[in-house]
């Protein structure tokens, strides 16, 4: 075979990155949409306003598309630990397997069962029971996020384990410690709030495009309102939880934190924060930067004084700590540019979302027609519907690239985790096929959402809900005959 300079480690890493990023386009979108749709249906149940029911059904369609893609890409996630990372699986199975199994048992059954109930029973249960179904879906999917993040948190910050002297594998000694990992309780709210923001701004963006066409103005203005209220609350929540999470890194994963802030050298007491900067990764130094004093300390310690260790210092410390066990040829520097810019994209977007929500809510006040005249704002809103996906990806880039060279922080390197018995050819094939399938599914998703949006909320009739636009509708009430 051609020697393309590819190795199993690189291909397995690429595959993990690609499948996770793609899967995570749909996870937060689905969790968030379940929440927003649940809120809309609850408002329908309370107020009896048919508009809210229409909203729940209309945006619920996008939820169903997203959920379908999320489910099928999720199976790859579960299988690939064993397929591509068998050494990791052996090493971590005692701890990683448990949350994964509980996730399936407690969360996946709940969401998959109740999504089926929700899809097909609009006309069969009273509105409160039907609303309960979507809340259970939302609860189930959030629960699944909790369990998988519990597993991820262990990889970021191992707690509650010992190393088995015979096998060299990690062994759980306290499930309580695994679950009460502080990393988890800063990561989980951040992910969930981020999911709510994702769905809110996609809905807001879609609504904005339709408002620009003066289409179903009342319907989309109401949708915009619900989305922006949720979007505002949770973008502020995301910022707050993100702040907690990033400050937690200062002690736990100092290299990640220093790279996020682009600090090669230790910071001075003045707390100069680089707004933008250029880096020379080979020489391990910052080539240029635009600095603002005190901001670094405000971000790190919520006060104006203090210092942060730079990557060069941390590198030395890590070598001192780990060389005995892992040898001195490991590179402890993480991809600085990726982390630095990802962090700026993520936090900048967080602030932008909060701002957009405030302005949008002001323009969209009930009695005011302002929103219809501020076309520039609707354009911005419309473009921003893509932004949450970029932001979510940036967040995971920081979390995962920032853990380099570890797959389990301080315990197992990425290079030691990969399956030794899988060939380059197999991995290359699966990478190419997954890529093509993802591209195809992504395209179909976009086309379907776009088409749904263009068709508008009135193409809906409850009886045929989720039945598709067939001529003959076998899902209507009359189709059930009592045998």
């Amino acid at each position, binding site marked *: 075979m051609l020697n393309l300079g590819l190795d199993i480690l690189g291909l397995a890493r690429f595959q993990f990155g690609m499948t996770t990023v793609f899967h995570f386009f749909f996870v937060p979108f689905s969790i968030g949409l379940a929440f927003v749709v649940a809120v809309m249906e609850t408002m329908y149940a309370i107020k009896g306003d048919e508009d809210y029911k229409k909203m729940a059904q209309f945006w619920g369609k996008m939820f*169903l598309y997203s959920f*379908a893609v999320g*489910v*099928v890409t*999720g*199976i790859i996630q*579960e*299988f690939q*630990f*064993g*397929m591509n990372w*068998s*050494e990791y*699986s*052996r090493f*971590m*199975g*005692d*701890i990683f*397997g*448990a949350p*994964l*199994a*509980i996730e*399936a*048992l*407690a969360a996946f*059954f*709940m969401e998959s*069962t*109740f999504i*089926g*109930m929700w*899809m*097909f029973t609009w006309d069969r249960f009273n509105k409160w029971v039907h609303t309960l179904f979507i809340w259970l879906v939302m609860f189930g999917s959030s629960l699944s996020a909790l369990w998988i993040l519990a597993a991820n948190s262990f990889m970021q910050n191992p707690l509650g384990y010992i190393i088995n002297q015979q096998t060299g*594998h990690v*062994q*759980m000694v306290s*499930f309580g410690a695994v679950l009460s990992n502080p990393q988890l309780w800063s990561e989980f709210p951040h992910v969930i709030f981020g999911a709510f923001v994702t769905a809110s701004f996609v809905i807001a963006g879609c609504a904005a495009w339709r408002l620009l066409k003066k289409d179903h103005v009342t319907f989309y203005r109401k949708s915009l309102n619900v989305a922006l209220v949720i979007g505002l609350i949770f973008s502020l929540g995301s910022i707050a939880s993100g702040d907690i999470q990033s400050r937690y890194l200062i002690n736990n994963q100092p290299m990640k934190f220093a790279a996020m802030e682009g600090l090669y050298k230790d910071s001075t007491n003045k707390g100069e924060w680089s707004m933008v900067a250029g880096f020379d990764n080979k020489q391990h130094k910052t080539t240029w930067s635009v600095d603002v004093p005190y901001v670094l300390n405000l971000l790190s310690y919520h006060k104006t004084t203090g210092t942060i260790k730079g990557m060069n210092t941390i590198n030395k410390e890590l070598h001192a700590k780990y060389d005995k066990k892992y040898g001195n040829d490991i590179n402890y520097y993480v991809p600085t540019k990726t982390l630095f810019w990802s962090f700026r994209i993520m936090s900048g977007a967080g602030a932008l979302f909060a701002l957009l929500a405030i302005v949008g809510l002001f323009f969209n006040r009930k009695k005011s027609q302002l929103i219809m005249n501020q076309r520039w704002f609707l354009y911005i809103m419309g473009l921003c519907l893509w932004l949450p996906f970029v932001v979510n990806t940036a967040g995971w880039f920081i979390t995962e690239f920032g853990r380099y060279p570890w797959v389990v922080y301080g315990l197992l390197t990425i290079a030691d985790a990969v*399956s030794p*018995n*899988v060939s380059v050819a*197999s991995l290359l094939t*699966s990478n190419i*096929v997954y890529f093509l*399938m993802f591209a195809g*599914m992504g395209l*179909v998703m976009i086309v379907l959402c776009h088409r*749904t949006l263009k068709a508008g909320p009135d193409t809906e009739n409850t009886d045929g809900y989720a*039945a*598709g*636009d*067939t*001529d*003959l*509708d*076998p899902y209507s009430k009359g189709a*059930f*005959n*009592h045998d």
Partner: protein
Amino acid sequence: MTSYQLIWFILIGVLFSGFFFLEGFDFGVGMLVKSFAKTEAERDVVIRSIGPHWDGNEVWLITAGGAMFASFPMWYATLFSGFYLVLFLILAALIFRGVSFEFRANMQTATWRNFWEWASTIGSFCAAFLFGMLFTAMIAGMPIDKNGDMTAHFFDYVNLFSIVGGVAVTVLSLVHGLNFIRLKTSGELRERALAWNKILYPVLFAGEVLFAILLYFSTDFFAKKPLTTTAIVVALVIFTCLAYWGVLGNHEWLSFIGSGLSLVSVVVLIFNGLFPRVMVANNPAYSLLIKNSSSSPYTLHLMTILAFSILPIVLVYFIWSYWVFYKRLASPKQNA
């Protein structure tokens, strides 16, 4: 071997049994989308019959995989990395059929509906076949090294035995799917499913006999456990006979339970033959054993408590969701 290890070996067998019983019929129904259902309207009904359920059924697989990871990490690591290509193809098949139902319903042109119908059909066929092939190859014994890494080549797991195993599971799923259609629909589709099964069952019998013969020559099951292996093979045939009787006498529940239990028998056969191993190596010294492939006692203990407290609740709402959709779906009127 501790009792927790034994419990989890059995539980994983139970989860895979649940998976084959449930996803077996929705694989079968998925296969029927193109050939059996003749019009768009019929396809709507056929797909709708599993619409609220297929996703929940697939969770049995995800749970089985997760449970295997949690309780037998060495087994999970060896099996999944060893059968890389087979599992990769299974994933591709599951993805295509998984999105096909939702996507098909929202396509506007006949060409694209057709595309997703084929995705469902081929995806379901491939998934069932590949699962059958994987488990058959697994019990035949694979080259596994000292580290537990399986280094099988294509013809180690693609051979007469594994292909027969794959075909047997495919046909079993197909008849199970048809039995489900008989239960879930009324009118034309219900009658057609019966007619199809009248033809398919003799094929299935032939397949089962061939499988049993190859099982004798390709595995050590009959040599190591002659009594139980024979008993389970006989049970498999009896369940299939009962299902066939249900076809001939038009007892729909009997057929459905019979074909479901036939699938379960296959899983029981595999797990019974594996015991006390989890992976069979060509060199018996390297076979993975229950006693040395599991998680720590702490994790197994924890998982046992959690599984036995969560599973009953899950079963309650899982079964309830079937109850909610118990009504039959009418076949579309002709020439509608």
